[in-house]
């Protein structure tokens, strides 16, 4: 099981636009990725490709989240997603 922590970079939190960018990227990966708030049990983690789950997470700017994935390419996939989470998409 690969695991990465990321701090939400978007100033307004993981809202519709950043969530859409992230969910789309997660859906295109070869592995299934889950997302949870830091400190929450792994079994409560949610599908990272679901925009509704991401929004329901209520992750704000500066919140730490945990990404998890298993299998071939998991490490590379998580690295890619961490970059997306830590970018401030509202500044673009």
């Amino acid at each position, binding site marked *: 099981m690969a695991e990465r922590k990321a701090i939400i970079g978007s100033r307004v939190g993981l809202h519709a636009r950043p969530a*859409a960018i992230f969910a789309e990227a997660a859906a295109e990966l070869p592995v299934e990725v889950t997302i949870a708030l830091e400190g929450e049990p792994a079994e409560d983690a949610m599908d990272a490709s679901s*925009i*509704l789950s991401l929004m329901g997470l209520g992750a704000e700017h500066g919140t730490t989240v945990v990404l998890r994935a298993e299998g071939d390419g998991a490490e590379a996939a998580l690295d890619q997603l961490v970059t997306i989470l830590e970018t401030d998409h509202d500044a673009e």
Partner: protein
Amino acid sequence: MSKKFTGVGVSAGRVIGQVRRMPEPILAPADGAPLPQGVSPEEESQRLAEASKAVATGLKERAAVATGDAQAVLKATALMASDRTLLKSATKLVSSGTCAESAIWEAADAVATQLTALGGYMAERAGDVLDVRARIVAELRGVPAPGIPDSDQPFILAAVDLAPADTATLDPAKVLALVTSDGGPQSHTAIIARSLGLPAIVAAPETTELADGDYVFVDGIDGLVVTDPSEAEEHLAQTYANREVLPDFSGTGELSDGYRVPLLSNVGSGEDAQLAAAAGAEGVGLLRTEFCFLGKEKEPTHEEQVAAYGAVFAAFAGKKVVVRTLDAGADKPLPFLTDASEPNPALGVRGYRTDMTSPGVLERQLKAIAQATSEHEADVWVMAPMISTPAEAQDFAQMARAAGLATAGTMIEVPSAAVLAGQILQRCDFVSIGTNDLTQYTMAADRQLGTLAELNDPWQPAVLHMVAATTAGAQSADGKPVGVCGEAAADPALAVVLVGLGVTTLSMNKRALAPVSAVLRTVDFAKAKRLAKLALDAPSAELARSAVRAELSELDRFGL
């Protein structure tokens, strides 16, 4: 055969085009309705998956041709339509024997509730989830998707009435005119039509007969819809299409004789204020402070308020900005201020009156306004909504001055305040007439009721007499200023009448600045006074309007 339907013209313009009807709203399926006879859960799940995919594809196609914010919203909505978590929880319900419609309804409800609980921005997105749900159910039922119809060709939108959510997605490049069978001159439909500059007719009950594809003439000036238009109507539409382009507003409102009538703008946010300033507004005649309160569970903090008001003041350095303190209640409820169980909210604890039930909110708001004032260069005035007595005006003025605000006034919306305007102005510095509520209270007619549209017309001579009583009161109080900040100020012909009645400033949607200024420049003060007298003496709103319009030939030139 050609048919003629009459209604109330609420936004000028004459056009011909094809009708598209607003689809019926999607009704909720029965709670936990079972699978249809003979259909397996697998088949039903497949049907649900296909519907969600079709909706997502449709939204993606629209996103591909959209730009900017609209594109981002459509993209996100498309992702919601095919969301794996949503589909999983709906499919689970289908497996336990629920039909697809009820399953997706219930699953989306749970998501929306969760987002609402998060508050703020996420709570607003709950509406998007419910919109996606309605689209999927429409797809499952094989009926048109809810909301404004998609069409390549511009069309005339016919509806019962439009909700704020519908008008938010209305594309003025696709819609030629609005026709509603219900709604009044102050309805959301009327307000959005005027702000987009679209011809519109409301309260035309027979227009429910109009069907998709009908070819009609819409006359927003005379309040008429004509099916199978004749040459005469083609000519009218052509004349309107060839109307003289309105000159941009120069930034100085005046009559032909140089009599000054500052033209200000109504504003609801910092961004709005920048657009109004760019349109030449000489200041803000009405800053609706609700924008920083609505949709909030709790009162915004001092810092949040100071920043929100400051953003507006920054756009009008050295100019007047009239701030209306929080106007909650009636059609603008706020969970921490208003009592939703009142039997008659329009006559209940709203506006300034909420200070009786929730003392402190107003005082803190005044403090925030004073703080923002000290940080900017704008000439800030404050006024309270829903003042009924001179004593209330005095209390408010004292409260404002205690907060460090130099200029305090009141709105004139309640007839009692219009009648005692002189006494009110002996206790504060200015008044501003809110014609929408003043009309509703003078005529005892609910603003949103289509049936009462004729009563709910600011051209009603009784309403104009209320304006005259207010300006007479101001004369007796050293000629203190009387503004108008209701929809009436945005009607160019009525604007002339208001000036003739002695109103000193007019505040309106920024789009109305150019037409109102152009028409004011065609009359001198003596003519404005004469037209005001014509309107006051008319026996009905209709006759007041037609008598005044007949004297303003320039209206036709500009197609107003």
